[in-house]
């Protein structure tokens, strides 16, 4: 009987039902859009922001004192410590390996280029590396071990992937040739252009290299010259060595747990917190896992990008929360106004129900179920509306991925949106329902 009563009452008050559904749908559209943006678009934006450079720097554990002036490093060769190039593929074996977007090794020394001093940097331009095979075990503080199936195949990485904002005139040098990528400022000073050959002198030995590309980076790289790592190792007589690695990793903004792990050290966290921390891609936990995989490495956070990203996403979230709050408030008032009107229209019906013996609980249940169902309808409409709005915002406002960027149907968003929608409908109906329960049947049946 209750179902019949609800269905027929909602159908009879179609206009009112639609009005409440629309009010709730408006608010839940924004809730759903916000959640989609928070969950999905933020991730995409994080990827975009991450494309503006690395956020982790790997150096040898026994790193020497280094003086850097204008991007030039001053370290005596005997003091230098190096990493092994052969260990680099292990970066793709850590727990959060799929969050490692790109990395590139560097080996640099001051050289003479066409009679001028410049920093020559060896790196991987565009390298496909095989992923090490074999099952991996991750041990946790409570003693449990988790086996993770290994990835197969290869991984594409290098400076080209790491520094996607660089503008390169000409082309990136290939890994198997003696081509160079020269910084725009240095090229201008040396008056060299694409396909020109330049003489590079290192420790009395000279080599001639072809300019394949000229890079505009907006940074110190414009005064440097880049060759592939193997050539730099040969020139510097450091086979298989590299002095630092820049890594671009997708990370989660730090929270209280990440801050505590950073303050007291992950090893001092309680076992459950340690596992949570380890299994969350904080910048700190990713670095920790890299240091586990390559033991003689020390990871440093390059905070600039991650902090700017965190601040931007934080502001964006705050703006959305304010917009959602205002929308929810407006929807609440709209539902309340509609329900008060409905109460006035249905007072005789309510009076009759009370005269027939309906008590406050039965009437309250009836009203709140009506509101809940209407809210549920608004929530469903709003959920899909929110998906569409988030898609539109991602394309039009944030220019993310164009139309090809697809929002995944986040499993958690639907229940949260529905909960918000039903809550708005219930809260908006609460006072009118309370008023309905207080109506005196004798007055309403008389028409007073």
């Amino acid at each position, binding site marked *: *009987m209750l179902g019949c*009563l609800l269905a027929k009452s909602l*159908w009879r008050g179609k206009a009112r039902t639609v009005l409440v559904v629309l009010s709730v749908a408006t608010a839940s559209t924004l809730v759903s859009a916000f959640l989609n943006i928070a969950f999905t678009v933020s991730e995409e934006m994080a990827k975009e922001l991450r494309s503006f450079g690395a956020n982790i720097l790997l150096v040898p554990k026994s790193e020497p004192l280094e003086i850097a002036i204008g991007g030039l490093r001053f370290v005596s060769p005997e003091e230098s410590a190096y990493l092994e190039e052969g260990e680099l593929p292990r970066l793709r074996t850590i727990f959060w390996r799929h969050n490692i977007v790109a990395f590139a090794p560097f080996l640099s020394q001051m050289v003479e280029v066409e009679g001028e001093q410049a920093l020559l940097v060896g790196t991987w331009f565009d390298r496909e590396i095989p992923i090490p095979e074999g099952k991996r075990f991750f041990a946790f503080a409570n003693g449990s071990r988790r086996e993770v199936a290994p990835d197969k195949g290869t991984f594409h990485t290098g400076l080209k992937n790491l520094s996607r904002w660089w503008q390169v005139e000409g082309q990136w040098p290939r890994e198997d040739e003696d081509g160079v990528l020269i910084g725009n400022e240095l090229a201008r000073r040396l008056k060299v252009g694409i396909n020109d050959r330049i003489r590079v002198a290192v420790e009395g030995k000279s080599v001639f290299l072809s300019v394949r590309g000229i890079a505009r980076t907006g940074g110190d790289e414009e005064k440097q010259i880049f060759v592939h790592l193997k050539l730099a190792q040969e020139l510097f007589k450091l086979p298989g060595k590299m002095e630092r690695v820049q890594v671009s990793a997708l990370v989660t903004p730090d929270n209280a747990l990440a801050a505590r792990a950073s303050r007291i050290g992950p090893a001092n966290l309680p076992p459950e917190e340690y596992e949570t921390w380890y299994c969350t891609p904080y910048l700190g936990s990713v670095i920790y896992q890299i240091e586990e995989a390559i033991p003689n490495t020390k990871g440093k956070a390059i905070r600039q990008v991650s902090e700017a990203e965190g601040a931007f996403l934080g502001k964006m979230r705050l703006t959305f929360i304010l917009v959602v709050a205002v929308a929810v408030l407006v929807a609440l008032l709209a539902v309340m106004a509609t329900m008060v009107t409905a109460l006035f229209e249905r007072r005789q019906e309510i009076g*009759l*129900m009370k005269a027939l013996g*309906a008590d406050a609980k039965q009437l309250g249940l009836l009203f709140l179920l009506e509101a809940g169902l209407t809210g549920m309808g608004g929530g469903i409409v709003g959920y899909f509306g929110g998906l569409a709005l988030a898609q539109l915002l991602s394309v039009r406002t944030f220019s993310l991925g164009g139309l090809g960027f697809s929002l995944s149907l986040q499993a958690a968003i639907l229940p949260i949106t529905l909960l918000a929608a039903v809550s708005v409908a219930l809260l908006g109906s609460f006072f009118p329902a309370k008023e309905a329960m207080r109506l005196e049947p004798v007055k309403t049946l008389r028409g007073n």
Partner: protein
Amino acid sequence: MEPLILLEELTKNYDGKVLALDRVSLQVYPGEWVAVMGASGSGKSTLLNMIAALDRPTSGSVWVNGEDVLSLSEEERARFRREKVGLIFQHFYLIPYLTALENVMLAQYFHSMADREEAAQAVHEVGLEQRMSHYPSELSGGEQQRVCIARALINQPKILLADEPTGNLDAENEEIVIAIFRRLHRAGLTLLFVTHDPQIGTQADRIVELEHGRILPTFPAKALRSI
């Protein structure tokens, strides 16, 4: 025999200006059919509302089936209405978006649990088996009132209270409805009617006449019939 309805010194004063009931005392016995008559504004409907626990008096007491109605909480008054009394109104008051059968089932639902078979039987007993799935707007006044009678009887109340039950009916439908009441009375149900129509009043065992909120000397209906 204990009276089923016992009113003592019942007074209802609206805002201290209108004295609707003035120290009314009345006893109605089980199985009795009482007609409360009087001109408009004499306090007939107010009296019925007090008995049905729809309104509270300014002073006095109301006992129904041994229960002090005035001492009941709001929740207990609701329970009292659904269990003890069946109500019939002049303007029918059917839920417009429910069918005849569903209107009857609604009273069942508030009482305990809706039972379609039982509700259908009640509708059948008032002669509307062909109209069960009709909406109130598709029924005549007489048919609507018969649905109301079925609704009032569905929870097997102790007393049937009716406020001008034939006030909106034509002569033909009035006769049908009164025939149903006669049948219910014969079956032993206690009936208390409010009416201003002497023709209806004469059907009752006893007529109680109200004037300006006070009861005039009571006389048996057969005395009126003999005039």
